[in-house]
C-alpha cells in the first residue's frame, strides 16, 4: 500500500511539474486567456458572496460591476457577465475612468494599473456593501477584499475576512475554503 501510494505521489509530482511548465508557457503566450480566467473568477465571486438587502436601491435594481480605469480584461469580463445574475439581480458591467467617478456599485474591480490610486479608491468604497477585487499586494494592504493572483501557474485568490466584514458581505464557506486568507 505504502509503496503504491508512493508511486502515486511520484506520478502526481511529475504531472504537476509538467502542468506548471505548460501553464507558464500558456500564461506568457496567451494573455487574453488569462483575462478570461480572471473574468470567470470575478463572476464566481458574485456567486459565493452574499450581499445585504440594503445594497440594492430597489428589488429589481441591477447588480453593478464597476471597473476603474483601463479594462484589463479587454472585454472578457463583459462577456462573462452578459445575461448573468447575482444575488437575484441582473449583472451590469460599468467602466469608470477614475475613482471619484464611481457611482453606486456592488463589485468594484481595481486593476493593477490603478495601484497608485488604490488608497483613494478603497476609501471611497469603504463602509459600503461593495466587494472590492484587486490584483496587487498593495490593494490588499490598502484594505481590499479579494486579490486575484497566479500561484504555481494556477489562478488563486486572497481573501480578507476583515474587509468582507467591514463591507457587511458574507463569503461562502466554500469560497473561504479555496481562498488564501489574508490578514494584516
Amino acid at each position: 500500500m505504502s509503496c503504491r501510494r508512493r508511486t502515486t505521489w511520484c506520478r502526481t509530482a511529475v504531472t504537476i511539474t509538467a502542468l506548471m511548465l505548460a501553464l507558464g508557457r500558456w500564461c506568457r503566450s496567451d494573455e487574453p486567456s488569462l483575462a478570461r480566467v480572471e473574468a470567470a473568477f470575478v463572476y464566481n465571486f458574485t456567486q459565493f458572496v452574499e450581499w445585504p438587502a440594503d445594497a440594492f436601491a430597489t428589488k429589481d435594481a441591477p447588480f453593478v460591476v464597476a471597473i476603474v480605469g483601463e479594462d484589463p480584461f479587454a472585454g472578457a469580463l463583459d462577456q462573462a457577465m452578459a445575461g448573468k445574475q447575482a444575488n437575484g439581480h441582473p449583472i451590469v458591467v460599468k467602466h469608470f475612468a477614475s475613482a471619484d467617478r464611481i457611482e453606486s456599485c456592488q463589485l468594484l474591480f481595481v486593476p493593477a494599473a490603478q495601484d497608485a490610486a488604490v488608497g483613494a479608491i478603497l476609501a471611497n468604497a469603504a463602509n459600503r456593501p461593495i466587494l472590492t477585487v484587486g490584483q496587487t499586494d498593495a490593494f490588499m494592504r490598502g484594505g481590499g477584499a479579494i486579490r486575484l493572483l497566479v500561484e504555481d501557474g494556477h489562478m488563486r485568490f486572497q481573501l480578507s475576512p476583515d474587509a468582507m466584514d467591514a463591507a457587511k458581505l458574507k463569503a461562502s464557506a466554500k469560497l473561504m475554503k479555496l481562498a488564501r486568507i489574508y490578514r494584516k
Partner: protein
Amino acid sequence: MFLLKTLKSKLLAMSLISTGAALVVACLVLAGYDYRAFRAEMVTRAQVFAHIVAGNSTAAISFGDENDAAQTLASLRFEPHVVAACVYDRSGKRLAQYFRGESVPLPAPAELAPGAYRFGAARLEVSCPIHLNGQMIGSAYVASDLDALHARTHGYAIVFGSVVLGAMVVALLLAARLARFVTGPVGHLSRTATDVSINRNYAVRAEKAANDELGNLVDCFNGMLDQIQERDRQLTVHRDHLEELVAARTIELSKARDKAEEASRAKSNFLANMSHEIRTPMTAILGYADVLLSPTQTMSDRINSLQVIRRNARHLMDLINDILDISKIEAGQMTVESLSCDPARAVVEVVSMLRPRAIAKELSLTVEFVGGIPAEIKTDPLRLRQVLMNLTSNAIKFTERGEVRLKVSAEDLGSGSRVRFDIMDTGIGITAKQTERLFQPFVQADESMTRKYGGTGLGLVISKRLAGQLGGDLTLRSEPGRGTTFSFWVQGGPLQGVLMRQGLSESMLAIGSHQSDADQIALEGRILLVEDGIDNQHLLTMHLETAGAKVIVAANGRLGIERLRAEPFDLVLMDMQMPVLDGYGATSELRRLGYTLPIIALTAHAMCGDRTKCIDAGCTDYLTKPVDKELLLRTVASYLSKAESNKPVPTALSARLPAVAPVAAPGGATARDAAAPPGSSGVAVRRAVLPRDKDAMAEAMRKAVEGFVSRLPAKVDALLQLRQAGDLEELRRLIHQLKGAGAGFGFPRISETAARAEAAIKAAAGVEAVCAGVEELIGLIRSTAGYDAGQEGHDVPAADGKPGTPGPQKQKEAACPTRNC
C-alpha cells in the same frame, strides 16, 4: 414414491414436502423482497455519497480547483464499498478522481445521465448533477462494489438453508410422533385384517381408538366380521343339520309313500270288493228275477224269489248309499240338520229292525237305559239312526255267539246335553293295530274279513264322521276274542223344559218285535195321494190300503189342493214332479193357506239337496222313489199317530184350524207321552188286528198287476202318438212313470228299458238313440201285454236278462222307417 411403502413414510413425506415447500416459497419471497430493498438502499447510499461529493465540489468546479475536488473525493475513503469516484466540470472534463484500490475505467459523462444509476456485473454506478444557483456546472460519479449485496445474498442462502433444514427436522420429528395417531389404528386394523384373511379367524375384533373416520372404519370392519361369523355359524349349523334334515325328510317321504301306496292299495282293494259286493247281490237279483219270469213257478215260489230280490236290492241300496255318504264326506259336503228327535225311540226302532237278524244268529239283543233319558233332543234323527243301525248291525255281524247289548245314557251339561250310546258285543274283537286302521276309508280290520262278513268297510268311517258332525265322537274299546264296545255320543242341545224319562225299558217303547215286517203295520186314517203316474197311484194305494188306510188320489197339485179344500185328511203324500202344479208349488201354497198337517214328499231324486228342497217347500218328511214299502208304511204310521194325538178329529183345510205343526209342539207331545200309560205310546201303529195270509196278499198283488198289464196297450198308443208328435217332454214323463211302475209291479225289464230310454232323452242323445229306446220299450210292452203277468218273461231268454228279444227287434225294424221323432 415407490420407496414409500408404508403409510407412515407416506405421511412423513407429505408433511416434509408440504413444510419444505411452504418454507422455500416463504424464504424466496422474503429473499426477493429483501434483495430489492437492499439494492434500493445501496443505490440510495451511493447516491447520497454522490450528492455529498456534488455539494462539496461546487466551488472546486467553479474555480477549477482540482486539489480541492480531489480532497473532497478523498473523504470517500471512509466508505469501504466505494471503489471509484470522480467529478466532471461543465464541459465534461474530469476535474478529480478517486480509486479505492486499483484504478478502474471511468465512463465518459455522456454514458451515464446525471441523476441515473446502473448496476453492472461488478459495480453499482451512480451519477449526480452539480448545481450552482440553479445552473448545472458539472456532475459527480460514484461507483460502489457489490460485495455487500453478494455477502447479503450469501448470508441469506445460509440462513434460509438452515431455517428450512431445521424446520424440516422439527416437522419430521413432530410428524413422526403425530403420525402415530393415524398409523397406529390403521396398522392395528391392517394386522387384524391380515390375521382374519390368513388364519380365517373371524372371532378377532379390531379395537377402536377414537371416534373419527378410523373409529368408524373399525366399527364397520367389526360389523362385517360379525356378519361373516354369523353366516359362518349358520352355514355350519345348516351343514350339521342337513343330514338330519335329509334323514327326517326321507323318513317322512317314505312314510308318505307307504301311506300313499297303502291308500292306493286300499282303494284298489275297495274297488275289487265293491265290484264283488255289487256283483253278488246283482247275481242273486238277476238270477231270481229270471226264476220269477219262469211261468212254471207257483205264487209262493215267486214270493220267495221276490223276497230274495228285495233283500239283495236293499243290500245294494245300502252299499250305494254308503258310497254316496263316503263320497260326500270325502268331498266335505256332508251336512246334518238339527231336528227334534226322541233318542230312546230311535234306539228301540233300530233294535226292533235288527232283531230278526239277531234272532237268526241266536244272539240276545237287549237295550238298557241308564238314568234319565230326555224325551227329545235336537239332532239329525236320520243320521243318528244311521249310526246306530250301522254300529248295531256291525256288532251282530261280527258276533258268533253271546249277546249284543245297547246302553243309553244322557247327561245335562247345562248349556247342552250329551246322549251316549254304548254298543257292546261278545264278538271276535279287534286288535289295537286294526283299531287304528278301522276309521280310515276303504279299510276293514282285515281284508280277509270282507270275504267272510261282507260289508263295504265304509260304515265305521261314515259313523265316526257323522258322530263328529253331530257334535260327539265315536270310540271303541276291544279285546280280540272277548268282544268290542263302541261308544258314541252326540250333542243334544239344551234340555230346559224337556222331560227326562226315568226307568225306561225297551218294552215300554217296543213297536213289536215283528214290526220290522211291513205287513204287520196297520194304518188308520184318511190319506190324500197326490200323484200323476197312474201306476204309482195304484202301487201306493195298494200298499196303504192293504195296511188299512183310506186313500184318495189326486192327479196333480192343483187337484190335490181342491180336494183338501173339500174334505179332511190326516196326511198328504205328495209327488214332487207333476204336470199343472208340481209338488213344491202345491206344498208351498198349502202351507201359505195355513195347512198344518203332515205332507210327505215323494221324489225320484236321491241326492241330498232334494231333502232340503222339499223341507224348504214345507214338506214334513221325505221319501224317495222307488218307495220302500216298509219305510213308507212306517213313516206314514208315525205321522198318523202324531196327527191323531194332536188332532183327534181331522178337519178339512177350509176349516182353517190354528196352525199347530206337530214338529213345532214338542211340549204337547211330551205332555201326552208323560200322561199316557206305558205301552200305549205306539197308538197309531198298532198291531194289525187280522194278520193277512199270503194268499190274500198274493190275490191283491195279482189284481194290481193285472190292472197294470191291462193299461199297457193304452200306454203304447200314447207312446206312439207322442213319438209321432215329437213331444219329448211328455214322452219322457210317460216313460218315467213306466219306469217306476214297472219295478213296482214286478216287471223289472220294462223298468230298466224305460230307464234307458229316459236316460237317452235326458242326455239329449241323438234321434236314433231315443227312437231305438222308445221302439224297444214299445216292443217290450207289447210282448208283455200279450200275456198275463205271470207269463211276462215267457218268450224272453231269462239267462242274461238282456232285452234282445226277436219281437222287439222286429217291431223296431218295422217302426223305424216311419218315425219322425
